[in-house]
């Protein structure tokens, strides 16, 4: 137990006691009690920055399940610190924002803060865990708390739909990731990430290396909303806006990026990893930015924008993985991609968080998020407009904001692909910068849409009524701080390079030496990247002005083909499919179930019979001789038995079954079992008497009204059961493997137990327990019969009348 464990535990403890504060102090917004938690954690992580900067890592272990190698190891290095600062820093701002956003009278805010704290703790656990199983546990906890937060307004259909969708997709990925972790464990014998990294050179070429890689990536891609698993993110926008800002832009969706970065040292260096990660990122980048333009809901635009930006970062991690392959001299070329990824990760968290908060303010003040209904808010909400301006221009990649810097570095990294002479990249090298440039143009367009359609133009008074006024100070402070950071990181990016980015890079690339962050500068001459940015701006503005003319492009890809429809189809289809399957065989008819059982019995028994010859004799087998009496007896028994199903009246059937019973009694006499004969006769007599006693109350035996085919089928089934039993009986009779243990009973019956009737001695002395429990069975049966007859509930008919 260390300070670090305490920081992870703190939100969980707070989540447990938040409802108490909610109950005790109704007049103070519960958020104020929550605020110190992320703040304290943030201060802790700020204070640990110098240690991490020195290249050291803070770690401590608490033993959990030592026999399985599962220990709670908290491990703080550059990468963990970067994410922890994001989680706690933006967490603090989101808590402040939510205090002003959520009404303490109208909303169940104690639940909100419980879930939020649960999420915060889980997220810290994900980024600070060194043990794969603990990491997975926290990972699922983030899915779970995200599910709870999306469905915070659970009486809305859309919220529940979105929550279910995100749950199914992220948990699907989570399971895949767990499988990947287990494969890693079987390859290395340890759950510790650092120990696996030490063993990483031995992994490539092993059978399970590629499956493990793909499964882990599946987890990362579903969580980070990569193509085609991005569909849950837009629907998750049904959550309250602070949740969207926190989970679905800054933290949870970056958990997948964290996993990709963390596992780079294990899997990267392989061509497959490079291609999967960078191409998925590239496709997501393009698809997200392309789709964002078609939407009219501000949060949906931001959701697709988040998807696209996550794809950008993912693509950079993929390109950066080449540095593991090259090592040596031109390593700096590809570590630059990692640096860009880390830098853009920070930048995206700042401007996207601010933009979500701005959208929340607009929604809060006007009551709508639809850009078709909004317009001209600039005059009424100047401060909000300023933040939106900073956020969108940074997202679009314009100077002097931080988005400009990371976009320039992104282009640099993409252009460096052209210099790759491995992984058979050559012919594809032009693809990367071209696709990224197109995606940037779309990014530019939707950034302009968000800014201009909301804040400029004419204010639609007839739709919105009274003009809104500026939001309260509390709502403005958190986006204000984020917007400030956007400018500060834009103007002084090197504040970050050595304090945060370089340790993070060293953590992502732990096996490489000389990993250094470059100096970032706003102006670096007339390089191709600058021309690309200017091209993006020009093309973006032109396309924005002609938006109406080419928007028809979107109708060529109809909604029915979208990936959400595929998800719906799969979900509904699997439900319908399982329904059909179940309805087919679960008919509710007892006869069908009995047929399944008998057919299965015949198949399994028949299969085992084919492996032996039931007619072959083993051991000393002496059959008893057959006398004429027994033959007659057998014939009578068989005639009585065969007559039972043919009997027309119930009386005849009962008597025939009784006759079979008495024949069996006679057999017992022949086979020298006096006690059996006695019992069988009494039981048979009582049974028949009982049958006849209830005879009066039972309905007439009706003729079986079944089709000819059904009768033949029944005959085949019962015939094969009979044949099977006969063959088994023969096989057993033909085997004499060893002597019976009954010699002991015979010898000891009189000597030890003092009884001459050996069967009775066995029943009450040697195996008295059987008899004891058999008495219990009789007792239970008689009690049950008594209850059945005496205890009367109302009949279904009466029950229906009562309703």
């Amino acid at each position, binding site marked *: 137990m260390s300070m670090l464990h305490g920081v992870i535990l703190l939100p969980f403890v707070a989540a447990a006691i938040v409802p108490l504060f909610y109950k005790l102090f109704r007049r103070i917004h519960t958020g104020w009690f929550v605020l110190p938690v992320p703040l304290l954690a943030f201060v802790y992580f700020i204070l640990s920055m110098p240690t991490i900067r020195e290249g050291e890592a803070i770690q401590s272990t608490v033993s959990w399940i030592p026999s399985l190698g599962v220990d709670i190891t908290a491990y703080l290095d550059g990468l963990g610190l970067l994410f922890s600062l994001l989680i706690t820093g933006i967490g603090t701002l989101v808590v402040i924002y939510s205090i002003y956003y959520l009404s303490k009278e109208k909303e169940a805010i104690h639940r909100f803060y419980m879930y939020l704290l649960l999420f915060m703790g889980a997220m810290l656990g994900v980024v600070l865990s060194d043990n794969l199983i603990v990491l997975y546990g926290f990972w699922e906890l983030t899915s779970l708390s995200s599910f709870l937060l999306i469905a915070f307004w659970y009486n809305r259909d859309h919220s529940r739909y979105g929550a279910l969708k995100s749950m199914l997709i992220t948990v699907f990925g989570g399971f895949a990731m767990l499988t990947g972790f287990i494969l890693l464990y079987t390859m290395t014998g340890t759950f510790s990430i650092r120990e696996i990294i030490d063993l990483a050179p031995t992994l490539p070429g092993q059978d399970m290396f590629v499956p493990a890689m793909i499964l882990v990536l599946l987890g990362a891609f579903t969580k980070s909303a990569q193509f085609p698993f991005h569909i849950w993110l837009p629907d998750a926008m049904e959550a309250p806006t602070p949740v969207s800002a926190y989970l679905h832009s800054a933290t949870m969706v970056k958990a997948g990026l964290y996993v990709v970065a963390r596992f780079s040292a294990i899997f990267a260096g392989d061509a497959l990893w490079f291609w999967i990660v960078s191409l998925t990122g590239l496709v997501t980048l393009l698809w997200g930015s392309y789709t964002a333009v078609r939407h009219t809901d501000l949060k949906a635009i931001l959701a697709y924008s988040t998807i696209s930006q996550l794809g950008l970062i993912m693509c950079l991690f993929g390109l950066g993985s080449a540095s593991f392959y090259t090592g040596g001299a031109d390593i700096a070329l590809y570590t630059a991609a990692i640096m860009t990824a880390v830098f853009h990760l920070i930048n995206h968290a700042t401007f996207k968080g601010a933009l979500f908060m701005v959208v929340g303010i607009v929604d809060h003040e006007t009551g709508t998020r639809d850009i078709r209904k909004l317009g001209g808010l600039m005059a009424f909400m100047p401060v909000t407009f300023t933040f939106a301006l900073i956020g969108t221009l940074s997202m679009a990649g314009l100077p002097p904001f931080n988005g400009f810097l990371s976009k320039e570095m992104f282009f640099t990294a993409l252009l460096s692909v052209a210099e790759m002479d491995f992984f058979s990249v050559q012919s594809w090298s032009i693809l990367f910068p071209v696709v990224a440039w197109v995606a940037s143009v779309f990014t530019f367009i939707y950034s302009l849409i968000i800014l201009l359609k909301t804040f400029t133009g004419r204010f639609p008074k007839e739709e919105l009524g009274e003009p809104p006024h500026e939001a309260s100070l509390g709502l403005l402070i958190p986006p204000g701080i984020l917007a400030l950071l956007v400018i500060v990181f834009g103007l002084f990016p090197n504040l970050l390079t050595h304090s945060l980015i370089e340790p993070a890079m060293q953590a992502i690339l732990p096996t490489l030496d000389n990993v250094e962050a470059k100096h970032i500068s706003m102006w670096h001459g007339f390089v191709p990247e600058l021309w690309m940015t200017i091209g993006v701006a020009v093309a973006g503005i032109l396309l924005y002005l002609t938006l109406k003319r080419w928007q028809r492009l979107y109708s060529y890809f109809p909604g029915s083909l979208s990936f959400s429809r595929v998800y719906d189809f799969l979900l509904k289809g699997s439900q319908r499919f399982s329904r059909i399957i179940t309805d087919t065989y679960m008919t*509710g008819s007892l*006869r069908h179930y*009995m047929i399944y059982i008998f057919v299965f019995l015949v198949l399994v028994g028949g299969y085992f019979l084919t492996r032996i010859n039931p007619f072959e004799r083993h051991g000393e087998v*002496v059959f*008893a*001789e*057959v006398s004429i009496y*027994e033959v007659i007896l*057998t014939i009578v028994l*068989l005639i009585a*038995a*065969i007559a*039972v*199903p043919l009997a027309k009246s119930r009386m005849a*059937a*009962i008597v025939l*079954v009784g006759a*079979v*019973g008495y024949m*069996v009694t006679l*057999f*017992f006499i022949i*086979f*020298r*079992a*006096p006690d059996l004969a006695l*019992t*069988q006769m009494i*039981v048979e007599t009582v*049974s028949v008497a009982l049958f006849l006693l209830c005879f009066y*109350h*039972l*309905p007439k*035996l009706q003729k*079986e*009204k*079944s089709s000819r085919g059904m009768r033949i089928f029944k005959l085949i089934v*019962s015939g094969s*059961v*009979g*044949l099977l*039993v*006969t063959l088994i*009986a023969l096989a057993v*009779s033909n085997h004499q493997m060893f002597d*019976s243990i*009954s010699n002991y009973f*015979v010898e000891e019956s009189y000597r030890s137990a003092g009884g001459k009737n*050996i*069967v009775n001695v066995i*029943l009450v002395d040697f195996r008295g327990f*059987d008899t004891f429990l*058999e008495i219990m*069975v*009789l007792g*239970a*049966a*008689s009690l049950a019969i008594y209850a*059945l007859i005496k205890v009367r509930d109302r*009949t279904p008919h009466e029950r229906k009348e009562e309703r």
Partner: protein
Amino acid sequence: MEILMSVTTGVLFMIGTYMILSRNLLRIILGTSLLTHGVHLLLLTMSRLKTGVAPIWSEDIGAYVDPLPQALILTSIVINFGVTAFFFVLAYRAYQENKTDDMEQLRGGDDE
């Protein structure tokens, strides 16, 4: 004798199975009765038949038939009797409540 008994038990099993696959509840109960008889004869047959005298101990007798299967069958007879009696009363009550003994109609209610 064992071969003859094997065939007999087989026939009893066949008829028992056939009856259990009926629609009529009474037939099903009778089917289980026949099945039980088959099982008892099978148990007895498999321990070899007529290998000595009845298992009543006496000073001067050497060979007895196997007493253990007899003890098992005796237990089984009693248990089977209890179950059959219960089953029978259950059928009687089911008929009283539902006014039918057709298994095609006894398929469970809508609220299940």
